[in-house]
């Protein structure tokens, strides 16, 4: 079998697995409708709600059909879109339809599309920042193992890992927002409006997320690099008279690319599901905020839609990691 064909088959297998996972998550999140002691139609119908009106609303929302038909309609809506009601009152929810909020009179997909750039801005910036700082600190700690710099960084990383986001966020707001008055304490400016304002408003959320998540990268990098630098091929690299900096980067760090890339991809996936607390602390309306508001209002359509979208992001990130392995490590992904 050719290498390319083997890779394709491997990718197809992983894709099938990813779809299966998504199906399970969709079914599970859909089950919330039935497990919660709420009647979505009742919530949507409002007060006062006559029994006739309730039946009408139920039929409109599709709640009068059996559960499997509802699940089927929901899933099919993601692929092909769906229409609620009929005639003049019909509402069309275009594909991919993640549900429709009767409370906000908008489909969940539009709500997500509106919030996604915000969350994406937070996620990408924070991820970049913490990868660079976290990995960099890990490298320094590993190369200065046992010395003062190592102990300092490791001590700091314990603080970072254990500090809660809301505490660090509030302390930052207190210090840089109020006391020093150098950074805005919240809000969001779209990148298209003003790149400077965009970055300026996001510096604090990025930093807070980086402090909390970067510490894990520092620990991973330090541990893995110490291990790799003890391997035989490092001695070979030194035995040919390579400069130590080249030994560390070309042979040490090159062997860390796989574990670090794995972590980055998975973290990116979970960040897209929203950074609920950080968004709340800095008053930014991202996907996390959408979810939080929906939970407060018991807007189940949005909850299910956002949950499924977050799961989709994580599963796709996993899938990307699986595909990346083959490209990043010559020993993997070449089924003979």
């Amino acid at each position, binding site marked *: 079998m050719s290498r390319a064909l083997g890779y394709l088959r491997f990718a197809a297998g992983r894709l099938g697995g990813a779809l299966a996972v998504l199906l399970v998550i969709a079914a599970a999140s859909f089950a919330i409708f039935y497990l919660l002691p709420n009647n979505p139609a009742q919530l949507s119908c409002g007060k006062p709600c006559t029994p006739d009106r309730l039946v009408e609303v139920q039929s409109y929302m599709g709640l009068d059909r059996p559960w499997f038909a509802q699940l089927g309609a929901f899933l099919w809506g993601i692929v092909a879109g769906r229409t609620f009601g009929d005639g003049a009152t019909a509402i069309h929810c275009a594909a991919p339809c993640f549900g429709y909020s009767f409370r906000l009179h908008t489909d969940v997909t539009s709500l997500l599309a509106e919030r996604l750039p915000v969350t994406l801005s937070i996620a990408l910036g924070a991820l970049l920042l913490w990868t660079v700082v976290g990995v960099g600190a890990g490298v320094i700690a590993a190369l200065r193992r046992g010395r003062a710099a190592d102990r300092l960084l490791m001590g700091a990383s314990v603080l970072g890992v254990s500090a809660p986001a809301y505490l660090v966020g509030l302390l930052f707001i207190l210090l840089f927002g109020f006391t020093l008055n150098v950074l805005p304490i919240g809000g969001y400016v779209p990148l298209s409006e003003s790149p400077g304002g965009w970055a300026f408003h996001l510096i604090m959320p990025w930093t807070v997320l980086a402090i909390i998540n970067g510490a894990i990268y520092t620990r991973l990098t330090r541990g893995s690099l110490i291990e790799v630098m003890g*391997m*035989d*091929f490092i*001695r*070979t*690299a*030194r*035995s*040919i*008279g*390579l*400069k130590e900096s*080249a030994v560390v980067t*070309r*042979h040490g760090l*090159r*062997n860390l690319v796989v574990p670090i890339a794995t972590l980055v991809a998975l973290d990116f996936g979970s960040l897209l599901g929203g950074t609920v607390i950080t968004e709340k602390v800095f008053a930014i309306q991202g996907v996390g905020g959408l979810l939080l508001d929906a939970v407060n209002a018991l807007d189940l359509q949005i909850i299910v839609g956002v949950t499924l979208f977050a799961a989709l992001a994580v599963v796709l990130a996993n899938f990307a990691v699986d595909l990346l392995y083959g490209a990043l*490590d*010559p*020993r993997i992904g070449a089924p003979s």
Partner: protein
Amino acid sequence: MTAPEPVLDVRGLSVRFGAHPVTHDVDLRVREASVLALVGESGSGKSVTALSLVGLAGGSAHAAGSAVLADGTQLVGAPPEVLRAVRGLRIGMVFQEPMGACDPMYRVGRLIAEALSAHGERVSREAARARVLTALRAAGLADPERIARSFPHELSGGQLQRAMIALATIHDPELLIADEPTTALDVTVQAEILDLLRSIARERAVLLITHDMGVVADVADDVAVMREGRIVEAAPVEQLFAHPQHAYTRTLLASVPRLTGLGEGAEAQPEARVRARSEERAKDGPAAPHAPDGAAASNAQGGARASTRPPQPAGAHAQGAQGAPRAEQRGEDSPAARLHEAVVVHGGRGGTRALDGVSLEVPRGTVVGLVGESGSGKSTIANVLVGQQALTSGWAEVAGTRVRPGNGREQRRVRARIGTVFQDPAGSLNPRRTVGAQLAQPLRTHTDLGHGAIRQRVAALLDEVRLPAGTGERMPHELSGGQKQRVSIARALALDPDLLIADEPTSALDVSVQAGVLELLRELHDERAFASLFISHDLAVIEQIAAHVVVLRGGAVVESGGAEQVLRRPTSDYTRELISAAPVADPIAQARRREAARAH
């Protein structure tokens, strides 16, 4: 032999790690176009000595003394930048395990090209490629383009070691340090790599670090024997082997297992005994439960050592040890282990055949030696017998019971009838429990002995493997490699098994320790008359212990028969190749064999 300018002149070199001294006053002179072998057992300081010359002994290593290259460059105490310039350009290095020594992320050609440009030399892509290919071809690789394109894991150990030699010599250094370059390789591959080293040594000096006296005899011109950080003897190779001056050198030479009847000169006394023994066994035939002389000797010993087992004829004692529920299991006529047409295929249809129709039998009370190179299926057979590997077809049985993976009652009971000893004694003992607790474990699981009885059995077991009584209270890390392996043996024998599977049990040990462990296994076998499947790549070791030998290659049996017949009058070419590839620890005999092999 007194060349005026040695390529490397080491005088009074002492290395310490922090406050802990490792080597003392080492003197070495490596002559031009010759091989100096630095020989010693593990921990003797031979690698540290070589690595400290180029500043690679580790951050906490401090060297004192003098080490001068031919042009007067002083290596000891030289600043790191000077040593870095020496590495690769003037001193090349080859290490033990080629797979570990290559960065798995890069193609082999790229690794060699990196060595080419490591010292700031500006080389065009094409020129670099051409030089890499030339170097690979010079290292004896017929298909350099493919090798350069390959990642390390796509090549065999031998190909990779040749590539590493190409890498180490790309700048045509005046000295090549080879640190156990063939230890991780199969014998036939080792022979080829040693040939390559010999041809390299025609143009430059080689400092060869090894523990293997056969390798020394094969390639060295001069030898320095190292022990506990000191050079105890240094001499030209013929002189050292013919007239060893130091007692340690003599011990080292005496403990090397040798294949007998290979046309060596005067035979050492222990060999004569081994030969007598193996002839004895061969005469008795494979079904003979024990060698009578050995049993008599050990019975006399057994009485003196107050074993819990009263001395008795070996045949009778197979009926069962104290308290172990076993008599019912013993179909006396079924062999200890049997494989019939065993096939193991990995990776589904069209996958690799790890075992390809192997049939073999381990008669009761007999040691069967299983010989072969890596990938021959030796360890797969062991895994099948202990139920860790399912057969694709065919069957396997131990003491008359079919074995298969799974944890049912029957399978657990069969497994209690098998003792296993593995290569790495440190890895097979639990580092956090005392030796005594680990020996008691199988007794507690598989017998209904009480506390006191178990304690007695543990003490008796320790005594049987010649360990002092206090060993039971000690932790594995407090023991030496040889002692740990004795504990493993005691554990394997705790339940008085029908079958002992010993998978390369002495391969990780130094020769002098190996000799002791082999002697112990032989004595225990004579005392207890268990059957044993003894797996080894080392024919000389096999000859010392096995009555019957099975030679495996690529998952199939190439040859089998009495040890005497297979090892002295082999019928297959492959067995002959194996025998001739293993270097003998005698430079004159080895040179003669080499000539003979070349003439072939």
